[in-house]
């Protein structure tokens, strides 16, 4: 990622035009000789719940990484809430992720040395505002919302898989992001826990008015989405509402 600071564009919403939350334009991504994304176009409206489905290797997870700004595309453009990611510096990209994007991973991805509460606080680590006490209170409230009010100071190793994923959801929501990206969020959980976690994610997403994009294999998960995008061989093969 470049360290150059890109000119910050004025989001078109600020100009009175309603932008989509996510706009992917002709994105291509290659790993060596293997082209994983072959000119993908996708638009996700604000507040929409979209499920991206497809077989392993179809490119759905790579597409999510590209949208998150954690995997640079080789070609094409991404706009998040009207902001073009192309040429954005590492610092600006980090700022955008911190401000606008929450991510939930299949493998929970918590910091093992930190407590549940400190993990949730990570996105606000460098924030000057709101004050620390307020931030802490918000993290506590989020952990209570995900049912972990009694486990604030537990390290990840002392939590079950479902509990860890709930901590990850609370962390993803900590900064009140406009967009929540989830990469197989129930993939490492049993059916019952997976359903509970997914319901929680949808519920909180709805409550916070968040645009939700979930990558999943699971048709039951996809069934709850307002829109399903099928990926096959690096292309979107079908999109239905």
């Amino acid at each position: 990622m470049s360290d150059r600071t890109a000119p910050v564009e004025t989001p078109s919403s600020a100009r009175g035009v309603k932008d989509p939350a996510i706009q992917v334009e002709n994105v291509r991504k290659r790993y060596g000789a293997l082209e994983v994304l072959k000119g993908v176009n996708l638009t996700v409206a604000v507040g929409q719940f979209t499920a991206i489905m497809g077989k392993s290797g179809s490119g759905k997870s790579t597409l999510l990484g590209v949208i998150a700004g954690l995997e640079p595309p080789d070609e094409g453009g991404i706009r998040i809430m009207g902001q073009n990611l192309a040429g954005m510096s590492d610092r600006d990209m980090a700022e955008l992720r911190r401000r606008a994007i929450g991510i939930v991973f299949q493998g929970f991805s918590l910091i093992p040395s930190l407590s549940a509460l400190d993990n949730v606080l990570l996105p606000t680590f460098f924030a000057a505002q709101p004050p620390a006490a307020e931030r802490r209170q918000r993290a506590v409230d989020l952990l209570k919302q995900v049912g972990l009010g009694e486990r604030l100071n537990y390290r990840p190793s002392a939590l079950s898989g479902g509990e860890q994923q709930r901590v990850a959801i609370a962390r993803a929501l900590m900064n009140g992001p406009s967009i929540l990206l989830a990469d197989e969020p129930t993939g490492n959980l049993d059916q019952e826990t997976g359903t509970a976690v997914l319901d929680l994610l949808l519920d909180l997403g709805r409550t916070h008015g968040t645009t939700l994009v979930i990558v999943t294999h699971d048709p039951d998960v996809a069934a709850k989405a307002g829109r399903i995008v099928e990926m096959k061989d690096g292309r979107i093969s079908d999109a239905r509402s």
Partner: protein
Amino acid sequence: MNSLRYALSELAFRRGRSLVTVSSIALAVLVVVVLTALATSYARAIRVPIETVGADVIVQVQGDIPPKLEGLVFPHPNALLPAGIVAQIRAMPGVISLTRAVYMWDLEPDRYASILGIDDDEVGLAGLGERLTGGKPIDAGSKAVLVDSDYAAKNGVKVGDTVKVGDAAFPVAGIVDAARGGKLVRADIYMPLGVAQALAAAAPEVTALYPFGPADANLVLVKADRERLEGVVAKITALLGKQGVVSSELSMRQALSGVLFLSQSMGLIIAAIISAFAAAFVWRATASAVTERRRELAILQAVGWSWPQIREQVLIENLMLAIAGATIGLVLAFAVTLALGQVSITLDLPWDLSSTPHFIPSATVDRSQTITAPVAISWSMAALAAAGSVLIGLVAALAVLALPRPQPWSLLRSE
């Protein structure tokens, strides 16, 4: 949560690695500081014999053995130093002051004594006056002499007695404890330079070898600017040629290098090797810690940390390890030097610097001198070692973080 708390959690979580890293830094600091303290103490000890003479450089010229070993003779390391040469030495840059002396043996069938006639200054007669154990001091105009306490005890000499030097007799004005001043440039009988010069100029066994005049000497003690000591020694050596014997702490160090296995440079070399090992270890520990935490660093990027912010966090962690290591190392070094207390070294002093006739058994003296010097930490070296540790910690972290890193998504994705 702030950076320090996060760093502490991280270091405590990986306590095995933290402990090993801190220990290696502490060990390096300990070794560097203690070896430097020892080396400095030894270096100080080497300087002691020359320092006790009161001069920085002792100048002599090698000569010949007298044809007959009787009466007043010059030992062969104390050949003629003409007044003109002495004047040239005095004029050399870096020479602060110069004391002339005439050193002789008085070889009689029934007795032996070493005689030193010396200028009346701090290094010479005035300095001897401070070591009086009885009687009174003498000056340049005196007709009396001072007698060494060992010689006086062995020969039953008291203040007010008369001692013979060559054919002349001199009243004893005082007894001096010259041993307190070390074993270099030491004699049994001390007298004003002028008196000794006159005796030497009239001594057949001296004049048989050298055209000794009443203004000449055969031993010169030089006080020099310590910053320019090497230059002064080099110039005098060049002036006197291969017959010159120029002694200083530099030549003592050279001559005693076999005894002093831990010279200053050796200490520094060992310390440098250990520091290099410690630096390599810290680099390796940091590299494997960062490799181990690649996924964790990717998570931080995913939750909105920029790479400079991540780098700052890793630097803080390494800085804490380095400070902890340096602190423990310094505390241990302080404890070790306190336990060592002082170094003790026995030096076999060069015969040339206070020659005695080895063919007279009763004149032979023990030339070994045991010197002790306190072992004290050099605070500048301690500060340097601590700063070096911090630098090693920071450079290791920066070097590791500068290595190419995988895209964070590749470490976090589900597929």
